[in-house]
């Protein structure tokens, strides 16, 4: 009912506006075209100036309103670089924005039609044109320079001591894998994926180094102040690992692993205090359209102290053990035999 009412009001508004517009056309004829033109021109000239002034105030006001809601302190070392780059770009483009917009609207207002004025015939001026080719070129060189320095730092190789975590996207969630005690990721093949049998990633159980791999979907744990390298995979369509607080992002592409690395600076607990939000979590948002659940494809990162990390790790059971409960007491020759037999079984 209320919708119909709104539509009716809109229609009525339309008709009223149209009638006024129609009437104004007749008035214009009565008043004479020249007088109407001059009046309209004055009004629009004034409005352009007013728009500029109110617009700039609006920009300032909008900034005041939202500046507390956006960035916050970057929670990774790379994030700091990105923020610095952002502020450099913001300063430079901000200056250009204000100058050009002010000139545009000021000129429009100042040089509006007047009987007394004649337009200045000014078809070109090489000196001016060279100036505004060279100055932007220099400014952009600065931006490219800063940008590339940071870009290569961020995309460079991860330090050798970095923790490595594999993260795999699927419709619609994330799977995390740790290499386990041997610090080597086991081999996997996507044809082996079998969710019913507890093999979400298609690990090859025959491969010894796969037997201690830890696979979880609960949360990705990482140690504060220790570099972490993510190996990013996808099981179905293209996803994207977006981590706003670290300012990091990388696509997850099926068939083509990608990597990023960074060093988290604050534990989740510290961030809860810093942001004043007890419900704070480092969230992973999927940033690449991946289907109907795209908007809800969330992962959680827990940044913890080394001690907490060790404790958490100790509690994890390898995926192999979970998938093959009879093989639980891992070491020993008997176990190895059963490994072989179950591996053979899973392959059939």
């Amino acid at each position, binding site marked *: 009912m209320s919708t119909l009412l709104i539509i009716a009001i809109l229609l009525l508004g339309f008709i009223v506006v*149209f009638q006024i*517009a129609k009437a*104004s*056309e007749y008035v214009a004829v009565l008043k004479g075209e020249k007088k109407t033109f001059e009046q309209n021109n004055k009004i629009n*000239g004034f409005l*352009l100036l007013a*728009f500029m002034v109110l*617009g700039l105030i609006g920009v300032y006001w*909008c900034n005041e309103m*939202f500046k507390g809601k*956006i960035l916050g302190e970057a929670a990774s070392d790379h994030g700091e670089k990105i923020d610095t*780059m952002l502020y450099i770009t913001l300063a430079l*483009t901000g200056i*250009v*924005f204000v100058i*050009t*917009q002010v000139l*545009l609207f000021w000129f*429009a207002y100042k*040089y*509006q039609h007047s009987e007394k*004025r*004649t*337009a*200045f*015939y*000014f*078809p*070109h001026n090489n000196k*001016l*044109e060279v100036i505004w*080719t060279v100055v*932007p070129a220099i400014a*952009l060189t600065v*931006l*490219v320079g800063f940008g590339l320095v*940071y*870009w290569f730092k*961020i995309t*460079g190789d991860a330090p050798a001591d970095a923790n490595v975590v594999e993260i795999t996207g699927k419709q619609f969630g994330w799977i995390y894998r740790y290499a386990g005690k041997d610090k080597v990721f086991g081999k996997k093949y*996507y*044809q082996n*994926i079998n969710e019913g049998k507890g093999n979400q990633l298609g690990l090859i159980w025959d491969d010894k180094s796969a037997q201690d791999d830890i696979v979880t979907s609960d949360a990705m744990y990482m140690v504060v102040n220790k570099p972490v390298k993510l190996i990013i995979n996808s*099981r*179905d*369509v*293209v996803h994207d690992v977006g981590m*706003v607080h670290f300012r990091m*992002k990388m696509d997850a592409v*099926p*068939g*083509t692993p990608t*990597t990023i690395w960074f060093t988290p600076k604050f534990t989740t607990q510290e961030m809860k205090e810093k942001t004043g939000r007890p419900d704070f979590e480092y*969230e992973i*948002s999927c*940033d690449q359209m991946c*289907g109907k*659940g*795209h908007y*809800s494809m969330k992962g959680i990162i827990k940044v913890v102290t080394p001690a907490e990390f060790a404790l958490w790790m100790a509690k994890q059971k390898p995926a192999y053990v979970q998938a093959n409960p009879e093989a639980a007491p891992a070491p020993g020759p008997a176990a190895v035999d059963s490994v072989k037999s179950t591996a053979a079984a899973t392959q059939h």
Partner: protein
Amino acid sequence: MSNEATVHGHSEVTTHEVHHDDHHGHHHQDTFITKYIFSQDHKMIGKQFLITGIVWAIIGGLFSVLFRLQLGFPDQSFPILEDLLGSKWAAGGKIQPEFYYALVTMHGTVLVFFVLTAGLSGTFANLLIPLQIGARDMASPFMNMLSYWFFFLASIVMISSLFVQTGPASGGWTSYPPLSALGDASEGSKAGMDLWLVSMALFVVSSLLGGLNYIATILNMRTKGMTMTRLPLTIWALFFTAVLGVLSFPVLFSGFILLLFDRHAGTSFYLSDIFLASTQKPLPNEGGSAILYQHLFWFLGHPEVYIILLPAMGMASEILSTNSRKPIFGYMAMIASLFAICVLAFLVWAHHMFVTGLNPFLGSFFVLLTLLIAVPSAIKVFNWLTTIWRGNIRFTPGMLFALGFISMFISGGLTGIFLGNSTLDIHLHDTMFVIAHFHIVMGVASFFGMFAGVYHWFPKMFGRYLNNTLAYIHFWITLVGAYLIFWPMHYEGLAGMPRRYLDVSGWVSFNQFDGLNRFISIVSIIVFAVQLLFVFNFFYSIFKGRRVKTPNPWGSNTLEWTTPINPGHGNWEGEIPEVHRWAYDYGKDGRDFIPQTEPVSATESKH
């Protein structure tokens, strides 16, 4: 050679013998069908493109209103939506996720291709190229007609995809595989996706037929004295637009063909290592690269941005100069910067792919080339500013929209410097910042260019004026509204809020923007309503608008204003006028304007 041919063709018209187009017979004997439907008159084809574009713009705009309702009011239900759209797409008056994604996909496809490509350059290339270069029609009027009808076919197929049971394509306007390749991954990747691909293929055909024709016409059919450097900037812009389209659309087409093969022929161009949760089965495909599609797509996708923007730039240049009563500043620099943009447009596509795992070293080249585009763009802005400086400006509706175009182009262009920088793109990629950026710089700015063109050339198209008061209302609400919608979106993007999220209430990181989303949605509905006011003004004025009484209402130099108020097929009744000067002699030697057809007098000062 070409001029002789043109003159020859025209003499046939004046002597009322056979029209130079044999298929048609005599142009005065046009039936309703040959005049309004299967017309080969470039002006009529332009109008067909424009009106089809307007219909599409209403549909595409309506889609955005629908999905903004969801994004702005995620916890409310609108029972009327269920009545209108059925219980599959809007169960309980709430837009379902599949439908939300179908809406954003169609909104993007429709506006980028059907409105801002076909509706914008289709309209104005057809209308203006023969009129402004002094030709009776396009090089091939028949091909030109085909171009429209392929577009029409593409439209029919796209519309029909809205009505298939599994819904239209819903993988985003970029349709990245594997999502778009696998029906089991998404409802929209079933029949809807096939129709989308067929429609887009037809669209590419239309675009190529049109583009080749525009290039051939501009190069060969110019009237006597119309050297390339005397062409109005509109024509230069439309020329580069056509070149961009002809060189890049085929690449997109090849990408689509491979996608069709992957969908139906069991190939693995884009597919590898896929296990689908919905079927619990691994696919046999191995060795394909999903990224390959992105390269093929963006090799068109980025030039496409300029295909959309260049005509708006050209028209804004022309309208600014005419209404400032002052020559365009730096004509040659304007052409050079158009050329530079045209070349660079082909060398920056991978800046859409900085975070796909692209080699960082390769990425660095794309950073450099991308930011390089800012140089010709800056030249254009400063030249426009100098054009209005010390002018004598008339704020016709066309002029206001041209000024609005510059304002939008500056605002959106500057945020491009953020996104083109790979370091910042890591954080901003696929966030609302991108949405704000490209809506301002290519969406709103190009729309402003298009509106400027419509208001400026409406008298030429229909021999009547649009209602001025409605035009001013349209301009002011659209300008203010566009900034209110898109400016605050930058802040959402800076906070990392991803695009294509239909509900952010479940995210600790993004749910601080509930109120802002609601505000943006409300403003967008108002702005949409005002566009309907424009559409009403457009159709009403075709039949009832104030009549144009003089052939040159804006006091303009270019050739289209030397034709009769309502030109017939062939444009000029007598001989095609000869051109003696460039198009921008406004305010020279104390004269308000000197048309291009006026010979240069001995006493005239040089520029």
